């Protein structure tokens, strides 16, 4: 447990270092200019280095778990800090039921968005929406086909009404 949480900060820090160095290296390719007349590269390089340094800081101060130094904040007496709120919010996300695995949700939610992007120019709104709804619903292993189909058709009608008829957007309804 302890090990795993430490790794999370390490991974996060490494990600920041990688992104920061990438920004700095790419930024180096633009004109740096002078301090008086900064070129296109100055700010990106500076920010990239800063991000890498911050990433290093995240790794070095990586803490196991939630024991955060900010517990010395003024609200200490009540043991109430924004982190408690954060934790509450996390509980909201996690508890309440044994939800499906987050990776499954991630996959189907992203797939649903991707399918929308691929299909909307070809199939039009009315056919694309139910397909995307179907894919998104797969994130929930308990979803049943008939209600999902009805939901998809309902949403197709609703979005067509709001966006195309109501706001007059130029979207194809059918292929």
């Amino acid at each position, binding site marked *: 447990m302890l090990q795993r949480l430490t790794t999370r900060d390490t991974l996060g820090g490494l990600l920041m270092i990688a992104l920061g160095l990438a920004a700095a290296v*790419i930024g180096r390719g633009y004109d740096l200019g002078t301090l*008086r007349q900064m070129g296109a590269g100055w700010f990106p390089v500076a920010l990239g280095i800063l991000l890498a340094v911050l990433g290093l800081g*995240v790794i070095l*101060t990586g803490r196991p778990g939630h024991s955060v130094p900010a517990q010395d904040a003024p*609200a200490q007496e009540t043991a109430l800090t924004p982190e408690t709120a954060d934790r509450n919010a996390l509980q909201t*996300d996690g508890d309440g039921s044994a939800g499906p695995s*987050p990776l499954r*949700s991630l996959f189907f939610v992203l797939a649903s968005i991707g399918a929308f992007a691929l299909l909307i120019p070809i199939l039009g709104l009315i056919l694309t929406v139910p397909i995307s709804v179907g894919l998104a619903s797969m994130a929930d292993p308990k979803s049943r086909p008939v209600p999902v189909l009805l939901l998809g058709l309902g949403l197709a009608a609703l979005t067509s009404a709001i966006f195309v008829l109501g706001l007059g957007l130029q979207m194809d309804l059918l292929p």
Partner: protein
Amino acid sequence: MMEILNGLSLGLSVAFSVSTLFYCFAGVAVGTLVGVLPGLGGLATIAMLMPLTYHVAAVDALVMLSGIYYGAAYGGSTASILLNLPGTANTAVTCLDGYPMTKQGRAGVALFMTTIASFVGAFIGLVALVGFAPYLLAAARSFSSQEYFSLMVLGLIAASVLSTSSPLKGLAMVTLGLILGLVGTDITSGTNRFTFGSLRLYDGLNLVALAMGMFGVPELIANAGRVRSNIVDSKSITWRSMWPTRDDWKRSTNPMLRGTGIGAVLGALPGTGGLLASFMSYAVEKRLAKDPSRFGNGAIEGIAGPEAANNAAIQTAFIPTLTLGIPGDAVMALMMAAMIIQGIVPGPGLMTQQPDLFWGVCVSFLIGNIMLLILNIPLIGVWVKILAVPYWMLFPAVVIFICVGVYSINYSTFDVFWVMIFGFLGYLLAVLKFEVAPLLLGFILGPLMEEHLRRSMLLSRGSFSTFVERPISASFLAAAALILLWLAYASLRGRARARAAKQHAALSE
């Protein structure tokens, strides 16, 4: 004073047009709705509905988006009280005493009192907004690029360290946001930065795609497949059960006013919004109480103060955005982006060049809050019923609204794919416990900050000392440095204490 009265009468004429009233109502109703539903926040909703506002007038767009923001604050307390799930993060503290009140059969009173407290806080916050904005504006006229740059530094540091759980991660997120904000054509030199040869990136990353991907998608993933357990019977909340006793009124009045004061001050400062205000108000009330043990067991002071603080902070958060053009938090940053898209430049020029917009929006806040009073007291039963809408219907609907919304901006499937990419990145960051709100703030301020930096350096002939030679700029930077020093000190002391405790434990074994 005369100026303010003239402004208000102008604002009244704008805000009472049929279309503005409609968008105001739509905003607060949608806001209450997403506030009530746990897991769907105001920020994601504003991002989601931003494309819709591209097609309406600027005033209406701003009125509606703001309505979502403060409406969500009203609605958020409903879920906190009835389900012990904060509808929005800012109302998390309301769970502490609101839910115990529900268990004691006093849900009605709690809902009534939070609505009244929200209204009182919002109203006084609004008075502060209207009263202080003209003075701040006068000060802002003397600001040059140096002051703007330093103020942004202060704002970004405050926003990323004060309201996140890990200051370093918050700073990293702000920096990453600044970098992402630079993608596209550099206005000064014409260089295309970080575009990787893609023509479509010349205009920069799409803000709506970024906001929805980073906020909407992780929220969806967290909520998919969730089943709600405790559903409240809407019939149990009757008119009679809502009316507070005389004792309730007496206990609530002063906390409401103190909360408003705390919220109004913290809201106007950069980086300290409603979340911090509500927690601080709770801490203050608990400290002042004759019998602190009542807190956590249904003390009405514990909901009245924080709710007033949260709503006052939301109103005064508009002060720096509207007068200086510098948003204090991610929601305000989105609001500012919405204005820029409409061709409005938030900042000192806004009030003088477009007084109808400034005052119209301010007056609409008053109208919106009155609407919320009606929506949340007589119609509370409707929202309680909405808490019963199952998630399996809700989350695919949100996916669709995100897709259609993003697609409708430019009819570009490229933008929709970006939602996917940002969604993945947002999820990754959430898993690694990075908070994305500072990233959004950095993203929107990035180009502006670079411009002010360049201009300052040009004016000072390449000397960084210009930032500390000018007194106002220097004081902003000093404040930023103080925040960082204080955090470093608190962190070191915390570590030392933890080590001491560990040694102590080891010794006693």
